[in-house]
């Protein structure tokens, strides 16, 4: 496995921010989503977040909900996610799973960590687990050397930002806005101060997500963050070209190239 920290080291050496792309497994199909994620790596994503679709995704807006629901309707299983991790990690790009907690608990926390590590996964992003309620995951991740990516939000107190930064490994995921995932017209003024607060708490890299969908927005965020996370905009490429895989992959590649240029333009 390749820890996500390596992409931030490389990006820093190149005086740019890292680009992290998200797609859920199983949309439009398991194989189709794997091809899509590999295309994103080839086109310039430094790391991939693989979404494990969940029936009750409270932090996701309509775009990711739609793809995740279609994936579930198509019968995607947790085992498919492990296979996707293996195939995407084989590209050499650090590959993290992003999921709500219940599927992990149901799979078995220790078993999940074991299988994720064996598949070559870098770690797990947990949008509905905070470190103070995540001791079981923290123990399993530590035992298997997996990245533990927790979120901070503009509403987080300084004390909680420090606690979260301390408990995270790989990077800290800074939610740029108070709200659910989804593209927004303007980048948030809340993200910069939040990144500063994480930096004040330690030297773990900070990546900013939620609302970033264009190269220009990525460039803005890249001025102050170690990484830029894009999700809904990638999912939108696939939703907009449903039934035409080649067109969907073209859209993904061109968006990736735009974003990759954005994270390099900033500094």
């Amino acid at each position: 496995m390749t820890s996500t920290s390596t992409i931030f080291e490389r990006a820093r050496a190149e005086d740019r921010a890292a680009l992290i792309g998200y797609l859920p497994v199983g949309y439009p199909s398991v194989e189709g989503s794997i091809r899509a994620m590999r295309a994103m790596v080839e086109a310039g994503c430094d790391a991939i977040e693989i979404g494990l679709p969940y029936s009750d995704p409270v932090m996701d807006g309509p775009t990711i909900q739609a793809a995740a629901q279609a994936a579930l309707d198509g019968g995607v299983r947790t085992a498919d996610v492990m296979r996707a991790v293996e195939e995407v990690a084989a590209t050499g790009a650090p590959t993290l799973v992003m999921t709500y907690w219940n599927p992990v608990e149901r799979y078995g926390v220790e078993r999940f960590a074991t299988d994720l590590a064996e598949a070559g996964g870098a770690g797990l992003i947990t949008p509905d687990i905070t470190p103070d309620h995540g001791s079981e995951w923290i123990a399993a991740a530590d035992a298997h050397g997996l990245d533990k990516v927790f979120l901070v939000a503009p509403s987080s107190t300084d004390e909680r930002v420090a606690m979260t930064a301390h408990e995270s490994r790989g990077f800290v995921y800074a939610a740029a806005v108070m709200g659910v995932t989804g593209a927004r017209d303007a980048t948030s003024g809340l993200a910069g101060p939040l990144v500063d607060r994480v930096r004040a708490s330690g030297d773990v890299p900070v990546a900013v997500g939620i609302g970033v969908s264009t190269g220009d927005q990525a460039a803005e965020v890249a001025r102050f963050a170690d990484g830029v996370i894009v999700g809904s905009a990638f999912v939108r490429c696939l939703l907009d070209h449903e039934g035409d895989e080649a067109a969907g992959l073209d859209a993904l590649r061109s968006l990736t190239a735009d974003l990759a240029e954005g994270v390099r333009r900033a500094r």
Partner: protein
Amino acid sequence: MSVQTGVQPSGTSRYEADERGYFGQTWGGRFMPEALVAALDELTEAWHDAMADASFVAEFERILREYAGTPSRLYHAERLSERVGARVLLKREDLNHTGAHKIRNVLGQALLTKRMGKTRVIAETGAGQHGVASATAAAWFDLDCTVYMGAVDTRRQALNVARMQLLGAKVVPVESGSATLKDAINEALRDWVASVDHTAYLFGTAAGPHPFPSMVRDFCRGIGDEARAQCLEQYGVLPDAVAACVGGGSNAIGLFTAFLEDEGVEIHGFEPGGDGVETGRHAATIHAGEAGVLHGARTYVLQDDDGQTVESHSISAGLDYPGVGPQHSWLAAAGRATYTPVTDAQAMDAMALLSRTEGIIPAIESAHAIAGALDVAKRLGQEKGPDATVIINLSGRGDKDMGTAIEWFGLGDAEEGPEADLEQVEADAAPALDTEAQQ
């Protein structure tokens, strides 16, 4: 009659949650996005402060008394009692303003919202009862109110949508997921993540992340505190058993809390068995679910092998939820309470029975409690004689369920009469103990 109306600060019983919201160190907790943690911490602190503030408690009790009509009666259902050979007492929450126990919870949460200086409330609703109660409280306290309701439910419950609108609330149909209650909760949480600085989430049941399970319980516990005092005052004894229906479980925990330390009192929760647990079409979460995390709490959940929430089924929309309040999971695990499924058919039989023996049309939710508790009463009557006492929470009235009853029993045609043989339904629902003696 002098009855204490409820609000008491949480004690240190083993049945209480710890300060992080865990019951029995396992159930409950707060599995929530970091973005909401500050708001949940703020709410927890405000709730603790309020419960320790005599003026807040007095104001809550005054509103309950003057506006909601509490304490509700503890009523001796004599004909039912004769049938089962034990004393059956009904806690008449159906007589509260808006027709159910839920008014207690929303008035408590809305009063707290005012105290916190927030100006807007959001709520989720299944059939619309909590939505109507929230809209009512928002009207009374002059708060903006938005209610999220599954699109499937807004079509099934147009009357309640109209009630909420008349009361001044905005009703938002939720199309995502299965477009029912659990998805309405998801959508309300999504709203809250973006609006938390000025908005309070009036959660509709004793579930969800800490502090909701304990806070909603505290606002509903007047049910049991009143019933316990009334039973002692009217009959000089504690009941042998208490019983309530359990969906999310707010009316049940509201009744049970006063009796948790009374070891001689059996505690019975009746879950929605739908078409029968064996069919898979049910919402008997504790009986047939497995431990998991849903809507921020570890609790019993109806889920598949991958931890995806499974759609629940009950004829009673108010019980149709694939999770359950975490304190109930703990009471079940600790052996302090027993949870048993009651099918749609058994509940509907009990609805007819109570209507025809006592002249009370219960909510179908409450009819689950009636159906299950009569078996308990019969057993206790046989064990202890006719003074054996069972308190059943009649958590709501059945007006809202007449559409379902019309369909189920074939009612409404004055010339043809009911399609169902209601005499037989009544007889089957709770066979008289000694039919010869009655003839």
